[in-house]
């Protein structure tokens, strides 16, 4: 464990010096993410001009929810996104070999090697909006519920990572350049909507099989409406199950990996 922590600190050091090498890009990326945040906030603000509630949530509650998913997105952009971008190329070009022969877990190495230093600035900005939306929320909340929310959002980030991996790993079999990552980005829209809008089979899909609703909407709901046993149990069960599926598919993928480029 200690070895992995030390290794991750090396990753951080390397990523920061690499990011500062391309300074214009560094600032462009910060601007890009700020624009993404503005668009998302504006989208719900415009919708709320036409209706007092969306799926039972008022303007203030919606902003807490938006703060939650922007924070999860920023965590993923900072920690995982660059690694996830390159993974299909490594598999497809047969470059995974270099990672398989190293004396550390290849899944750890490939998932965490690149830390996006520029997105880290955006993580701070997203964090500021998240806390702004919480302090702007007129109902009382306790420090304990805030800690609970942060834990659930970290769990949400891991769910996001797991689903993303499940969309990339088919590359082992399809040999395509990007797997189903474009489909993943479209599905990501489900994370940006309150879970109560989904009814019937769509609700089953987004809360169990592709649990995007568990990433930010469930945590926001637990914070805004209070925790209940079934929601927490659901979160634990689906998160654990998803992680086990990722490990299984990863192992199967490695068995199928031919080292040949496509």
């Amino acid at each position: 464990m200690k070895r992995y922590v030390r290794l991750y600190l090396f990753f951080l050091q390397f990523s920061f010096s690499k990011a500062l090498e391309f300074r214009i890009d560094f600032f462009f990326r910060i601007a890009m993410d700020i624009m993404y945040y503005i668009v998302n906030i504006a989208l719900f603000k415009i919708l709320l001009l036409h209706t007092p509630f969306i799926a039972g949530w008022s303007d203030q509650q919606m902003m807490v929810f938006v703060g939650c998913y922007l924070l999860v997105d920023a965590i993923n952009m900072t920690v995982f996104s660059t690694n996830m971008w390159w993974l299909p190329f490594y598999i497809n070009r047969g470059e995974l070999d270099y990672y398989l022969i190293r004396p550390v877990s290849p899944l750890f190495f490939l998932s965490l090697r690149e830390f996006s230093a520029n997105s880290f600035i955006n993580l701070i900005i997203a964090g500021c909006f998240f806390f702004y939306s919480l302090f702007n929320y007129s109902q009382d909340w306790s420090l304990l519920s805030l800690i609970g929310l942060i834990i659930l959002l970290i769990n949400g980030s891991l769910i996001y990572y797991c689903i993303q991996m499940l969309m990339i790993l088919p590359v082992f079999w399809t040999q395509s350049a990007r797997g189903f990552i474009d489909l993943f980005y479209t599905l990501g829209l489900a994370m940006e909507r309150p879970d109560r809008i989904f009814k019937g089979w769509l609700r089953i899909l987004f809360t169990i099989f592709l649990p995007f609703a568990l990433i930010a909407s469930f945590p926001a709901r637990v914070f805004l409406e209070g925790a209940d046993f079934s929601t927490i149990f659901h979160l634990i069960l689906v998160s654990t199950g998803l992680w086990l599926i990722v490990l299984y598919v990863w192992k199967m993928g490695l068995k199928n990996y031919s080292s040949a480029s496509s």
Partner: protein
Amino acid sequence: MRWWRFVVASEIRKILAFRADFWVTFIGQTCIQIFIARSLWLAIFESSGKTMMEGYTIETMTLYYLIVPIGSKMLTGENMGFLSREIYEGTFNRYLLYPLSFFHYKTITFLTYSAFYGLQLALAFIGYQLLFGQFTLNEFIHLGYGLLFFMIASYTYCNLSLFIELISIWADNIWSLMVMARFLCFFFGGAYIPLSFFPGALQAVIHFTPFPYLISLPINAMMGKLHPIEMITGFFILLGWSFIFSWLSRRLWDKGQYAYSGVGI
């Protein structure tokens, strides 16, 4: 001038190279976007207590969000970022050796993708109208107008993309600029929510930009929501933007080809 046929044939082969991947992504993306958008709008219609909002019922809103994902793909044509990557890697050199102009090659490539997505859009539109609405001569004409507007919008977006990507001759990475342009086009173009939901003052301002003409105009033409005068005005404004971006990207190329090192970074 048969060269363009070779370019088109080669691009179609590329599109169809990974068929399973292509169809899963296409059908998946389209269906997911419709279902998610419909769910959101059902919740909004329900909480507002209205059956029509800003000229849209839930049925016309569903049609709107059927056109948006495929229309957006048609607009953005070939995946962005390829040209800048070629400049960084130095593989851009090949365009200087090709027996045809770099601009013609890139435009044909881009529009081949757009035409392909246009075909999918036509099939999806006809299928939807046959299943849930009606497909008469009127809808057929609207479909034709919509596709025509989307093709011109796609040509405009192609030139906008070329303009941004050519900046990579000087800047170290322009990927984020491309994403920003895309955000602006989609948000102010009406891909996320129809422009009629925007506050009046904002609507007035964004009509001075090219964005509403890239997405909202073709969709409204396809849905038969445009008055002939609006259609003609929109057509000429779109052509004007197309000319401006085409001129800008060519000027940038004129300067850029002398600054291009050919080595990559």
